């Protein structure tokens, strides 16, 4: 047993660390530090920067433009990105539809779509969930009816993250309703968001943010060539995609940064207050979360080490999503404790670019604390709620 990285891995870590420390443009860095949401252009510029460095598509095979990193390198890269508090990439193109296209798409589709995904020229969004489908994805009702040389799409997709910026959407739709199992008769279709008949309606989340949307399709004509792989195999392709989604799903590195910040903050006399460090209950809670987080980090590494040595990950891998979101939400709650009254002012305007920071309420980004807490309740719900995850573990790991 050995938890250390090799010299080569350490050298790679230093290279990535240096990149994130030095190459993120100062204007972007300033926005991140001020808690200002970065917009579409910032995001695209940042992703292009990663692309130029060869860092944008760690999971892609070399032949399609990936860097050919080992499992450990991918882990180090994701950890360093989070530790540097660099923006996360938008996964829908590079981590979701990209792998489906290079795994199951035609040569024509690969040529047409992959380069623009790599270079962030096209913004993709995901059309999976539907109103009423919840965690039961196979209940989806959106139809793709064959009419000559095109499909006619009718239905509604929801929880479409950043769909307001998207140029294209990948959709799971029913091409056949006469099937024995609900998972059959579903196809994976790529749709240009500018096609007539598509409308995007914002969904405002409890923190007041516009992050997700409902996307309506009314008699939307999509050429047959936009079907990926075989008709009716969409469910299988979608599952492959979810495996890619599993990359770094624990958020350990991000949680570590947040706990370290809380610990540092606990030593400061903010607004002349007694430092939180003297509050034993607070420090014990912090210590207890640290224990869970350290355990999770090692559980993550155990999974990684298994994959890296070509073995199937053991039962420990199945708990990563559940535990990762639980720990993140514990930190959300502890940040609320730390902020006290100053978690409560609802002042989104002060996180706009032109707001005068001297006029801000709260210490640094303190008033974002509650918004983060409320927003992140989603973490234990999306991607198959934690209860669904437990059903899966009960069935597939415990054999119940």
């Amino acid at each position: 047993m050995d938890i250390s990285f090799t010299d080569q891995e350490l050298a790679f870590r230093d290279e990535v660390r240096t990149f994130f420390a030095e190459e993120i443009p100062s204007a972007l860095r300033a926005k991140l530090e001020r808690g200002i949401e970065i917009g579409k252009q910032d995001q695209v510029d940042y992703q292009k920067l990663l692309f130029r460095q060869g860092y944008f598509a760690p999971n892609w095979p070399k032949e399609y433009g990936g860097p050919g990193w080992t499992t450990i390198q991918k882990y180090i890269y994701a950890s360093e990105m989070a530790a540097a508090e660099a923006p996360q990439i938008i996964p829908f193109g590079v981590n979701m539809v990209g792998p489906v296209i290079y795994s199951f798409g035609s040569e024509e589709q690969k040529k047409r779509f992959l380069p623009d995904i790599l270079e962030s020229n096209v913004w993709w969004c995901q059309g999976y969930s539907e109103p009423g489908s919840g965690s039961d994805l196979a209940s989806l009702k959106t139809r793709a009816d064959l009419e000559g040389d095109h499909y006619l799409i009718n239905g509604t997709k929801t929880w479409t993250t950043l769909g307001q910026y998207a140029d294209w959407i990948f959709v799971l739709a029913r091409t056949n309703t006469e099937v024995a199992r609900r998972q059959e008769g579903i196809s994976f279709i790529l749709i240009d968001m500018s096609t007539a008949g598509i409308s995007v309606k914002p969904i405002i989340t409890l923190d007041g943010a516009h992050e997700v949307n409902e996307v309506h399709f009314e008699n939307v004509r999509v050429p047959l060539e936009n079907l990926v792989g075989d008709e009716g195999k969409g469910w299988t392709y979608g599952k492959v995609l979810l495996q890619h989604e599993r990359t770094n799903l624990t958020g350990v590195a991000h949680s570590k940064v947040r706990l370290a910040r809380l610990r540092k903050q606990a030593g400061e006399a903010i607004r002349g207050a007694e430092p939180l460090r003297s509050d034993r209950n607070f420090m014990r809670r912090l210590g207890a979360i640290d224990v869970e987080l350290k355990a999770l980090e090692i559980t993550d590494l155990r999974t990684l080490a298994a994959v890296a040595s070509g073995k199937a990950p053991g039962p420990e891998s199945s708990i990563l999503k559940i535990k990762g979101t639980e720990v993140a939400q514990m930190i959300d709650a502890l940040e609320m404790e730390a902020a006290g009254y100053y978690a409560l002012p609802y002042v989104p305007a002060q996180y706009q670019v032109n707001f005068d920071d001297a006029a801000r309420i709260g210490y640094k980004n303190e008033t974002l604390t509650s918004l983060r807490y409320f927003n992140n309740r989603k973490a234990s719900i999306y991607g198959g709620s934690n209860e669904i995850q437990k059903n899966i573990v009960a069935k597939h790991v415990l054999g119940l």
Partner: protein
Amino acid sequence: MNFDLNDMQSMLADSIEKYISNEYDFESRQKYAASKQGYSTKVWQTFAELGWTVVPFSEEDGGFDGGAIDLMVVMERFGRGLLVEPYLANIVLAGGILKRLASTQQKERWLYPVIAGEKQAALAHVEPQSRYDLANIRCTAEQRDDGWLLNGAKSYVLNARNANVLVVAARTSAGTSSEQGISLFVIDPASTGIAITDYATVDGHQAGDISLLNVSAPKDALLGEPGNGFAALDATIDDAILAVCAEAVGIMQVLTDKTVEYSKSRVQFGVPIGSFQALQHRMVDMLTGVEQARSLLMWATMVNANGSEDAKRAVSSIKYMVGTTGRKIGEEAVQIHGGMGVTWELDVAHYFKRLITIGQIFGNSDWHLDKLADCGPARSR
């Protein structure tokens, strides 16, 4: 980066597993626990013959030169088998002090017979008032011309009943709670002035309270330098914490496995109870707890094996997790076994009692959480 055992460790693990599955069933365990000694002499001899008692000792001491990881391998298997043999008392506790402090002559007289399985040893460090504070020692040792005079009281001395080697922590100077002034002695428990009240403990093991009244010990009863014994005591208890936490992880694994199996076969209302979602999710939580605890145990053991600056924090972290998650897993195992879970007959109840005992010794979860609250900033990368 790898979490696999090396070849030697795998062989050790296999040999213990094979022995337990062939020779040490639950009925035997119960019989040994209920016997006068509280363990089986024959089994203990086998441990010595198979080389398990030498694991944490250096080659110089005739040992295996094993580190914390080797001890983890042994103790996790002992946990799975729910062994009652006094490995902790002999090898980890008394042996841990002796290997650190004893001179060659002292080792020959006291330690090597213990490793060989010929003598039984015990460490007396807990006192009636000390709770979990290792430095809270009132027992005194006064220096006399011909040696030492010991007075005081000791509690929960594991294996006190069988010991013919007794290691005692006593104060040779300074106040009651200082880490300075603590010395360790090795004495014959048959010495005049020693009274042992031994008892069975709830987990099927045995311990005793000891009173020392004007006990004369020779000069060479002192281990190491006078007044400087705390570091060895502290390091030995850290080893013991890692050891019992490994045992606990083995127990947690068994309890989870047995509970899942039981839920598949136990039929209520015409269906196996394992088909109920309310129980499925709780068993997934048990599995999650075992895996998290195993991860933390591996980390704590590794950072202690290589002497990292995280070592102390790691010891408190795993002990805290075993105390909290272990309790939860034990209680859930009993609950899901229903009425059978609360009977003496079922092994699950005895695994549960051992797990609770482990949570209770060498600092409970509150004690260690308090230590974690005092720890400096986590190393963030």
